[in-house]
């Protein structure tokens, strides 16, 4: 943490507030648990043995550091700034989600918890959670919206292979927010033995902080790698935003580098005037799932369903630190539609031989927009936070191809 009072890296305060956002809006039953989690997290953070075990697993199990890659043909195609990628899609399990899961399962074991639950949208966080549970021999229950179970079948099978129980959730629109509700219900009923591994930088304090800290390995590595490869920092960071964990993981270590601009990319779905999942662009502040943040909601505060082609982005909220970073002006936020993400997906396949997940395809779509407006000696660093294997079926369907 910085001692500079004007630092953007000093959040949250001791009550878990990022400016006006964040906090601990949970039922009384859970309150003592999240206070205990916070105490344990503080102790773990100060414990070199915990950090050493985290680092060791990231290196030898996850495969970190992930490469920093200059994309020459994409850069040439776009005809502007140099485009670089942080290759977190090469991690074990294929996305950045595993970084956080390693951290949280170590915390769970430190706290003596014997059962793990998680929510998942695209299934990437579910797979990552099932993976660490298999690795450490803990039983795992993953809640997943029934709609997502249907559109992410390969990941459902992966979770089952890894020994997890996948519980389809039929409430509401049967997507990520409903899965999160169900995970919270499970947690309330199993407070004594269960640890809830939340998959994004949202939820009640201390989750947004600890998920950010575990994911910040992305930005720390990228900063060092960029300095050692080019002798300078990037001009612009770009990342897709569902709940905001891969984005905050990349951004946070750079927040006090005043010359590094940052762009978070929400899912504009069918368009911001239609169905979408862009809570900063199309929502307003409210309270859901333990934190105060921007939410898609109607005038009465009823939560609206997000829509995105990407199951990992269609959450009607966003992590509270992003709400604060938006209001402070430090990070800019934009959005990309389903169509733009699909185009960007194909562009990366063709130009670089990399099949990205649909989530970072939204970031690539934004890169497609901004790179041509920048000088050739400028550097864009985008987070390639997941690979596209899980998405080939839905992409084929959208492209009208029958597999």
């Amino acid at each position, binding site marked *: 943490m910085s001692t500079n009072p004007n630092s953007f890296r000093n959040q949250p305060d001791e009550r878990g507030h990022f400016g006006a956002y964040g906090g601990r*809006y949970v039922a009384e039953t859970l309150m003592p648990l999240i206070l205990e989690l916070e105490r344990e997290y503080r102790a773990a953070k100060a414990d070199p043995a915990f950090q050493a075990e985290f680092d060791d697993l990231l290196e030898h199990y996850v495969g970190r550091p992930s490469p920093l890659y200059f994309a020459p043909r994409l850069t040439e195609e776009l005809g502007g700034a140099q485009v670089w990628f942080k290759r977190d899609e090469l991690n074990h399990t294929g996305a950045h989600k595993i970084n956080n899961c390693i951290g949280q399962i170590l915390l769970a074991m430190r706290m003596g918890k014997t059962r793990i639950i998680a929510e998942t949208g695209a299934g990437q966080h579910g797979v990552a959670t099932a993976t660490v549970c298999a690795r450490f021999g803990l039983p795992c229950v993953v809640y997943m919206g029934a709609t997502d179970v249907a559109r992410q079948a390969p990941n459902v099978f992966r979770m089952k292979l890894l020994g997890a129980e996948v519980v389809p959730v039929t409430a509401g629109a049967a997507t990520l927010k409903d899965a999160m509700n169900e995970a919270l219900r499970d947690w309330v009923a199993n407070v004594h033995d269960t640890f809830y591994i939340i998959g994004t930088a949202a939820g009640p304090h201390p989750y947004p902080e600890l998920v950010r800290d575990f994911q910040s390995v992305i930005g720390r590595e990228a900063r060092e790698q960029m300095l050692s490869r080019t002798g300078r920092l990037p001009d612009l960071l770009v990342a897709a935003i569902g709940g905001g964990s891969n984005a905050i993981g990349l951004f946070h270590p750079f927040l006090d580098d005043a010359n590094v601009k940052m762009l978070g990319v929400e899912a504009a779905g069918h368009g911001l005037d239609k169905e979408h999942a862009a809570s900063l662009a199309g929502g307003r502040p409210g309270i859901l799932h333990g934190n105060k943040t921007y939410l898609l909601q109607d005038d009465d505060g009823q939560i609206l369903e997000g829509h995105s082609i990407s199951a990992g982005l269609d959450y009607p909220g966003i992590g509270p630190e992003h709400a604060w970073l938006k209001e402070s002006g430090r990070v800019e936020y934009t959005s990309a539609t389903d169509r733009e993400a699909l185009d960007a997906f194909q562009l990366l396949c063709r130009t670089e031989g990399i099949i990205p997940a649909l989530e970072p395809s939204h970031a690539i779509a934004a890169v497609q927009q901004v790179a041509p407006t920048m000088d050739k000696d400028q550097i864009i660093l985008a987070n390639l936070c997941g690979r596209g294997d899980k998405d080939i079926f839905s992409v084929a369907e959208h492209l009208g191809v029958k597999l």
Partner: protein
Amino acid sequence: MTRLQSAFAKGQPALVCFVTGGDPTPDATPAILDALVEGGADVIELGMPFTDPMADGPAIQAANLRALAAGTTTADIFRIAASFRTRHPDVPLVLMGYANPMVTRGAQWFADECAKAGIDGVICVDIPPEEDAELGPFLRDAGISLIRLATPTTDAARLPAVLEGSSGFLYYVSVAGITGMQQAGLASIEAAVATLKAASDIPVAVGFGVRTPEQAGPIAKVADGVVVGSALIDLVASHGTDAAGPVRELTRALSQAVHESRKADA
């Protein structure tokens, strides 16, 4: 004495009944509320429907969704409350729900509307004492009780914070879990209520998992009140717009068991 204080000062335990506002339709709710009063309920909890009722089990989740599907708005809830108040000037009415619909137009707006509608208290599931500033001060200034929940995980260290700024009654959630789950053991309820009563003067009502007169009676012996929700909601689910009759019958049986629980022994 406030309406809530009077409800707990009748010389017998109180029956607190919960139904979701707007379930199955906003127009059907007034008759269901009247049935609760006619059946002998001492305090009415009116649920404000929410899309994401995280602390509720399947029965109340479904009730929330039915109410929203019927087009129930926050304005409907306040209309239902205000008309209840004109029909039943002395029966306390408490709104129960989740934070977002309560604060979405500003906590001041919400507190003002509650006061105008004659609401006596508010239970907000997901605003713990740590976030009291969000809603509590506005309700207290408007003369409305903030009714907090205590749970089996509320330890001695937290209890003073839970009690601070709460009034009307204390709602003891007898199981760590969601609504509609199994009932806690009587011994654990008795011990918990004793702890709560030692720390506070406000009445303690016990809820979660109480469905039948046979369950409610013994709890009423050790607590100031008993809360029943899911069992009533189940009747609304099965009888729809004709639910008032069955709701009145169950309430009558419950209120007898609760009101007479202490006489049975004597």
